[in-house]
């Protein structure tokens, strides 16, 4: 069975990103293709902000997701509208808005909600973490 994970809770105001990470780790360890993709929406898109630096004695959640994604070739999607609104911007959006900076961390990609619909329709189960 293949799953889609939908993460909507803020990495700072909830444990949604933490719980989703633990679930994804366990699922992928048990079956490496059990998760087709992770879609971050609402405040969860803040996970992809490259400029955020957690204190050194705390978990680096962004890095933990990047490591997992790299190990299992797991796509990490951020909703483009939710991300741009919150200042998580890739190079092409930065040019489009005529900005001097971009802030999207590597391993994450900006996609529309249509990508979530495609994931929903091509996996057996979707699990929301909020």
């Amino acid at each position, binding site marked *: 069975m293949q799953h889609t994970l*939908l993460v*909507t809770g803020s990495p700072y105001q909830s444990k949604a990103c933490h719980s989703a990470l633990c679930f994804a780790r366990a699922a992928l360890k048990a079956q490496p293709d059990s998760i087709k993709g992770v879609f971050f*929406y*609402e*405040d969860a898109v803040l996970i992809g902000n490259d400029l955020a630096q957690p204190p050194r004695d705390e978990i680096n959640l962004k890095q933990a997701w990047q490591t997992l994604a790299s190990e299992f070739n797991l796509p990490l999607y951020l909703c483009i*509208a*939710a991300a741009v*609104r919150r200042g998580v911007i890739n190079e092409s959006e930065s040019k489009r808005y005529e900005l001097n900076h971009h802030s999207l961390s590597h391993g994450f990609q900006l996609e*529309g*909600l*249509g990508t*979530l*619909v495609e994931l*929903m*329709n091509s996996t057996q189960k*979707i699990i*929301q973490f*909020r």
Partner: protein
Amino acid sequence: MKNTLIHLTSSPYSSLACKEGLDLALVLATFEQKVDLCLSDAALSILTISQQPTPEQGKNLHKLLDGLEFYDIENVFIESSSLIPDSATQWSGITSLDSAAWSELFSSYQQVFRF
């Protein structure tokens, strides 16, 4: 195609959750997915007519309700105990369910998302 229920529980004025839940409903409908809405708790305030929020208070999401039928979103459910006594001040497109039907609602969809 899966049928999806979007359950709005957050106030339209305290966070973006309600707006982003509605955005997801509209995108699902645009992709011709079967989607219904249900409202409870603070999200019920979206139903009140004649809202005039300032930009600081947030967008007037009530205005979106009349457009739902153009996306073929036909069902907006609430629990009947949530109905306010003066129905003239509440949006008329809702379907109210008794407690038993409301409880069953959530198990009649393949996917339920909460915002």
